[in-house]
C-alpha cells in the first residue's frame, strides 16, 4: 500500500519536519531578524489560539510576526504582506484585512504586498485545500494585535503615560485623558524599536467592534486593476529580451520523443529556435513531460512554428488507455470486495438479510480544470541564480522544485507570485514553471512558456475517474440497516509513486469513510485501480464523486420508499451527535478532531436552513423539480437545493439555486457568496458537460468546443446563499471548494423529481433526450 496522509509530504515533507524541530533561535538567526518571533502553531497555547487548527502541521507551519507581515511608513501608509495566492477567492484582500482590522489601520491607507515564495519567512503558502482563512484567521489577528500593541506602547512612551491609557483608533493612537493623538506614521520609527509582545498577552478586539470583518463591504484590492486591464497575471509578465516559447509535449502520459524535424518550423516568420526540452519518466510528481520547444519573438509565431513541427513519439506504457474499457474495469472492480477501510457491524450479513437492497453505481469521468488562464510562466536563469514569475498556488513548493530541477540552492531561487487567472488545483503543480526554468537556463535569456488551451486539456493533471457503488439494505419498515460503499478510482498518489493502486487517506477521507449517516452496519471499501495518466487535485477533489453517489443514493432510497427527500436525508443523518467512524487515523482535512469534529447537528442545521429559506416543498410548474443534497467537506457544512426545468426535448435549465453554508467564523460574506455562486456554475458544468476521455492513450477533447463549460445563457437564473451565523468559538472552515460537491446530486435529484429519470453517470450528455 502506498498511503500518504498529507499530499505535501510528497514534496519532500521530511525536510519540513526537521525545520519544525529547529529551535526558534536558529530560525531567527537564519533570517537575520532580531527580536522578532517565529512560531509553529503547535507551540502556541490553546488559550492564545482559542481553537487549534492543522496549520502548524503544514510544511513550515505558521509564522506569527508583525515584522514579517506589517510595515508602517512615516507617511502613514501601512503595507501588509499577503502570503497566499490570489485566484479569485479574495484571499489577497481578506488576510491583510484581518491584520488591518486588529491593528486599527484605516483600509484606505493600506497597501497589500504580495509575498514571494519563502516559507521559512512567511510560513506555509500552499493556497489549496480551502485552508487560508481556516489556518490564518487567528494568526493574522495576532499579527495585527501585535502591531497595534507596539504602536500603542510607542505612543505611551512618547507621552510618558501608562500604555493602558492609550488606544489605537482608526490609524492613530489617542490618549483621551489629555486629548493627544499621534498618527501611525508619526509613531512608525519608535514602534519598530518596541519588542514584539507575547502572543499570550495580546488583547484581541471584541468582534462587536469590527469595522471590516464579517461586514462584506470591502472590495478586492485588485478590483480596479482587473476592470481596467492593469492587473498582472502570469501571462502578463514581460522582461527585456524575453523570448516566447510553446512546447510540443508527448500526447500520451509517459510517452517519449523519438525524433523531430524542425525545418518547417524554423521557416515561420518570427521563429528563432527549436530545441528539446528535458522530460522525466512517468510518474515524477510535477516534473516536466519533456518534448520540443519552439522559441519565437512572440507567442503567435511560436504557436505557428509548433504547428509546423514534425514529431515522432513513442507512446510508452499508457498507449492503450481507453476510457470505455477502463470504465468497465472500474465497474467490475466495484462489484467485488475491496480493501476494507471502515467497518461497523456486519454490512455483508445485514445486506443478505435485508428486506430490500437498493444498488447504485455512479460514474464520474476525468475532468480538466480549464482555469481561464492556461498554465504560463516566465523564468530568468543566470548562472546559479533563478527568478520565476508565475501564477502558482504553491510558491514555496515551486521554489524547492526549481532549485532541485536546476541543481542550485533554494536560496538562489526567487519565485514571484502573480495573480492567478483561476487555479482550481491545477496551479498547485508547478511543471510549467520548471519548463520555463529549464529553457531559460539553456537559452541564457528570459523566457515565457505559454500553454495553449489544447496543451492544458491534453497534458494536465486531471481529476480522477471513478465508480462509486453503494448498496443500501432496508428492513421491512423501510429503515436503512446496511450501507456498503465501494469506491474505485486511480489515486492522486499515483502521480508521485509508480504502482499505486489504492487511494490515499486524504482521498478516502473525502466523503467515503467519513460518511455521517446513523446506520448500524457499515462497510467502506476501496478496490484497486491503476492510473494511466497524471491525476491531480481538482477543486473539492474526491468529494465530487462521493457526494454525487451518497446524496443520489439518499434520493434513490426516498424514491423507493415513497418518502420526501429532505425527510429521508434528515432521518439518515440521524440524531445530533459527533460521528466517530471506526477508521484508523481518520483523515480530517488535516484538522484536529477536537476543533473540527463531524457534527451532525451542524449538518442537520444547513439542511433545515436551506429547506426553510429555499422553500423546500414549494409548488413548482410542470416539468420542474426540486432536489436537495448536503455534504461536509473541508470541515464546512453545505446544503443545496436546485430547481430544474426539463422541457420535452430533454433540455434542462436551472431557474433557482439555494445554498446554505456553515463555514464557522468567517471574514467576508460577500466573497463567500461569490465562491458559492461560482461553485454552482462549476457544478452545473460538470453535470452537463464534464468529460475528458481517452482513446489510444490520448485525450480526445481539445478546447472549449468539445470540453464545454457552462455559459451565461444557461447559468442558473438566481443563486441564493445563506450563511449560518457562527457560534462564539466556532473555528473557521473552508469556503473555496465545499460549494461544488452538493450541487451535482441536488441537481440529479431535482431531475428525478421533474422527469422520473435517475441519472447515475455524469455528464448527462444526451441521457435526458431519450
Amino acid at each position: 500500500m502506498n498511503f500518504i496522509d498529507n499530499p505535501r509530504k510528497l514534496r519532500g515533507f521530511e525536510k519540513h519536519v526537521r525545520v519544525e524541530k529547529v529551535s526558534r533561535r536558529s530560525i531567527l538567526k537564519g533570517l537575520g531578524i532580531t527580536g522578532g518571533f517565529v512560531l509553529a502553531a503547535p507551540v502556541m497555547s490553546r488559550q492564545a489560539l482559542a481553537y487549534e487548527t492543522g496549520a502548524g502541521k503544514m510544511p513550515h507551519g505558521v509564522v506569527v510576526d508583525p515584522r514579517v507581515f506589517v510595515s508602517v511608513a512615516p507617511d502613514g501608509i501601512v503595507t501588509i504582506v499577503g502570503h497566499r495566492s490570489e485566484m479569485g477567492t479574495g484571499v489577497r484582500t481578506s488576510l491583510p484585512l484581518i491584520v488591518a482590522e486588529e491593528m486599527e489601520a484605516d483600509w484606505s491607507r493600506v497597501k497589500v504586498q504580495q509575498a514571494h515564495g519563502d516559507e521559512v519567512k512567511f510560513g506555509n503558502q500552499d493556497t489549496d485545500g480551502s485552508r487560508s482563512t481556516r489556518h490564518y484567521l487567528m494568526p493574522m489577528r495576532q499579527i495585527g494585535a501585535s502591531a497595534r500593541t507596539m504602536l500603542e506602547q510607542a505612543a505611551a512612551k512618547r507621552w510618558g503615560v501608562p500604555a493602558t491609557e492609550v488606544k489605537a483608533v482608526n490609524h492613530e493612537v489617542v490618549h483621551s485623558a489629555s486629548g493627544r493623538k499621534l498618527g501611525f506614521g508619526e509613531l512608525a520609527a519608535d514602534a519598530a524599536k518596541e519588542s514584539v509582545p507575547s502572543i499570550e498577552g495580546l488583547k484581541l478586539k471584541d468582534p462587536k467592534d469590527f469595522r471590516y470583518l464579517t461586514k462584506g463591504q470591502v472590495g478586492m484590492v485588485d478590483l480596479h486593476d482587473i476592470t481596467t486591464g492593469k492587473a498582472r497575471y502570469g501571462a502578463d509578465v514581460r522582461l527585456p529580451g524575453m523570448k516566447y516559447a510553446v512546447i510540443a509535449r508527448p500526447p500520451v502520459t509517459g510517452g517519449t520523443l523519438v525524433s523531430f524535424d524542425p525545418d518547417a518550423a524554423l521557416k515561420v516568420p518570427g521563429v528563432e529556435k527549436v530545441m528539446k526540452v528535458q522530460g522525466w519518466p512517468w510518474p515524477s510528481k510535477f516534473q516536466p513531460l519533456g518534448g520540443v520547444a519552439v522559441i519565437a519573438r512572440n507567442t503567435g509565431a511560436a504557436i505557428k512554428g509548433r504547428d509546423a513541427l514534425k514529431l515522432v513519439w513513442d507512446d510508452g506504457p499508457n498507449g492503450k488507455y481507453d476510457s470505455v474499457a477502463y470504465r468497465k474495469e472500474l465497474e467490475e472492480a466495484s462489484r467485488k470486495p475491496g480493501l476494507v477501510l471502515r467497518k461497523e457491524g456486519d454490512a455483508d450479513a445485514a445486506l443478505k438479510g435485508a428486506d430490500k437492497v437498493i444498488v447504485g453505481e455512479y460514474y464520474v469521468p476525468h475532468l480538466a480544470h480549464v482555469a481561464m488562464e492556461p498554465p504560463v510562466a516566465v523564468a530568468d536563469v543566470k548562472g546559479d541564480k533563478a527568478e520565476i514569475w508565475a501564477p502558482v498556488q504553491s510558491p514555496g513548493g515551486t521554489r524547492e522544485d526549481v532549485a532541485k530541477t536546476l541543481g542550485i540552492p533554494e536560496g538562489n531561487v526567487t519565485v514571484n507570485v502573480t495573480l492567478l487567472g483561476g487555479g482550481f488545483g491545477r496551479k498547485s503543480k508547478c511543471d510549467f514553471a520548471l519548463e520555463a526554468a529549464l529553457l531559460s537556463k539553456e537559452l541564457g535569456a528570459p523566457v515565457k512558456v505559454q500553454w495553449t488551451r489544447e496543451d492544458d486539456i491534453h497534458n494536465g493533471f486531471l481529476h480522477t475517474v471513478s465508480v462509486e457503488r453503494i448498496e443500501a439494505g432496508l428492513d421491512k419498515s423501510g429503515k436503512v440497516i446496511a450501507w456498503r460503499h465501494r469506491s474505485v478510482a486511480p489515486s492522486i498518489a499515483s502521480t508521485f509513486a509508480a504502482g499505486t493502486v489504492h487511494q490515499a487517506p486524504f482521498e478516502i477521507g473525502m466523503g467515503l469513510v467519513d460518511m455521517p449517516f446513523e446506520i448500524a452496519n457499515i462497510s467502506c471499501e476501496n478496490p484497486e485501480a491503476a492510473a494511466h495518466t497524471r491525476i491531480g487535485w481538482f477543486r473539492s477533489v474526491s468529494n465530487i464523486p462521493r457526494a454525487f453517489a451518497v446524496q443520489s443514493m439518499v434520493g434513490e432510497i426516498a424514491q423507493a420508499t415513497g418518502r420526501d427527500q429532505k425527510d429521508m436525508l434528515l432521518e439518515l443523518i440521524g440524531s445530533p451527535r459527533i460521528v466517530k467512524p471506526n477508521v484508523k487515523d481518520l483523515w480530517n482535512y488535516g484538522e484536529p478532531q477536537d476543533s473540527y469534529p463531524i457534527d451532525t447537528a451542524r449538518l442537520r442545521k444547513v439542511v433545515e436552513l436551506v429547506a426553510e429559506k429555499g422553500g423546500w416543498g414549494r409548488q413548482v410548474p410542470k416539468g420542474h423539480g426540486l432536489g436537495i443534497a448536503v455534504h461536509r467537506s473541508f470541515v464546512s457544512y453545505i446544503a443545496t437545493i436546485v430547481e430544474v426545468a426539463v422541457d420535452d426535448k430533454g433540455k434542462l435549465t436551472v431557474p433557482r439555486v439555494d445554498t446554505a453554508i456553515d463555514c464557522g467564523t468567517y471574514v467576508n460574506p460577500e466573497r463567500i457568496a461569490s465562491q458559492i455562486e461560482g461553485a454552482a456554475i462549476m457544478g452545473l458544468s460538470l453535470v452537463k458537460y464534464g468529460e475528458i476521455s481517452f482513446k489510444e492513450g490520448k485525450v480526445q477533447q481539445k478546447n472549449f468546443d468539445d470540453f464545454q463549460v457552462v455559459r451565461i445563457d444557461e447559468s442558473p437564473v438566481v443563486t441564493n446563499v445563506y450563511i449560518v451565523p457562527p457560534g462564539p468559538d466556532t473555528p473557521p472552515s473552508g469556503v473555496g471548494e465545499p460549494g461544488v460537491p452538493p450541487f451535482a446530486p441536488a441537481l440529479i435529484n431535482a431531475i428525478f423529481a421533474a422527469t422520473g429519470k435517475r441519472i447515475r453517470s455524469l455528464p448527462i450528455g444526451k441521457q435526458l433526450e431519450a
Partner: protein
Amino acid sequence: MIKVKINGQEQSWDGDPDLPLLWFLRDEAGLTGTKYGCGQALCGACTVIVDKEAVRACVTSVNDVAGREVTTIEGLHPNGDHPVQKAWRQLNVPQCGFCQAGQIVQAAALLMDNPKPSHDQIREAMSGNICRCGCYQRIENAVHLASTGV
C-alpha cells in the same frame, strides 16, 4: 508595413501580416489587458472593439485591422470609469478576473449597439464569453446596472 490605430495611437507592424491581433497587442505592443483563453474564438477572453464592433482578437489578423481603429480594455475610458467598469466594481463582479477584460469590452460593445438590453438579450450577447469562475449572475446584473443606472 501595416498601420493600425490602437486606443487612439498609431502603431505599425512589418512582421507576419497573419499574426493574430491578440499576440500583436500582447507581445509586440505590450497591451496585456487583452487575454488569451482559447485561441479559437470560443471563450471571449480576447475581445476587443474594432471600429464599433466586438471581435475576437485571437482569430483576427493584424492585416484584418489595417487602417482601422482598435479599442482594448486599456482604451475603454481614460480613468477606467466607463459605466460598465463602474457597474462591475459596484457589484464586485470578478473572482480571478482573467475573463473580465473580455467581458467588459463585450458588454461595452453591447451597450453601444443596444443601450437598454433585456435580461435575455444580455444573456445572449454575453454567451460567447466564458467565465470559468462562474461570475455570470453578477455579470448579468452589472450589464443591467450599467444600462439602467439601477
